[in-house]
């Protein structure tokens, strides 16, 4: 069974958008998606890392102002079964892009 990181990659591929790993920043105005590992979110106890988890950030820059992009990504995150939250939605007035930003905690990687 693929590990959680691989499962996330597969889940993002199913959204229909292209997400590059650490693929931050394209030519201004370009629609794109990117995801990156950011930090650990391990469960600690008895001086041990009882369960390991990785916080992953997902960013989607799109011109689609409907709920579709959000629904497509969040359906896949729900199917993944890991806690996630939509951190922010921001309209970039200079590029016309909408920036959706999620944070996911991928646990169960022991």
């Amino acid at each position, binding site marked *: 069974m693929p590990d959680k990181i691989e499962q996330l990659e597969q889940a993002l591929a199913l959204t229909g958008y292209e997400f590059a790993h650490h693929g931050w*920043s*394209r*030519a201004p105005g*370009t629609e794109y998606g990117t995801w990156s590992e950011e930090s650990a979110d391990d469960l600690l106890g008895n001086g041990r890392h009882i369960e390991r988890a990785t916080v992953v*950030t997902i960013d989607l820059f799109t011109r689609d102002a409907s709920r579709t992009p959000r629904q497509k990504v969040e359906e896949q995150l729900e199917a993944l079964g890991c806690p996630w939250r939509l951190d922010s939605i*921001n309209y970039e007035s*200079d*590029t016309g892009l909408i*920036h959706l*930003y999620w944070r996911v905690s991928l646990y169960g990687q022991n």
Partner: protein
Amino acid sequence: MAKIELDGFETYISQLTALKADSLKTCKAIVYPGAAILADAMRSEVAGLATITDTKAKNNYQHNNINAHLSESQKAGLVESLGITPIGRDRKGMIQCSVGFSGYNGVRTQKHPEGQPNAEVARSLEKGTSYLKRDAFATRAVKAARSSAEAAMQSEADTQIQRIMDANG
């Protein structure tokens, strides 16, 4: 019939009354050391931000290339404008203040002929944009300062309460 005598009860009531009377002033004094610690942590994070030269940033903009970091002038704007708002009571009744950025930097653009708003530059870096990689410097500052800020406010609360109790004892 049993008789109960309470010593110092009136003193205790007067101490509580004094605490209540001065509560806003006391709470503001308690918030201040926490804000100062957070501001120091934020200043340290801003000082450590990587930059590119203004010329390179302008060149990137003109050639539709992305910027990996803030320009020197954008960073200078954050350094100069970092401050603490006056401590006050918000609409929910919480006594608090904000550590953040104000005013405009020296980068004049078509969209911002008077300079870019420093708060907007800070937000762009904190959350990332399609052309600027995210660097959550403010989140790091809060994480670094949280426990020591809480401890400083707890210590100040103990000091302030003791001072009022002693003055009315």
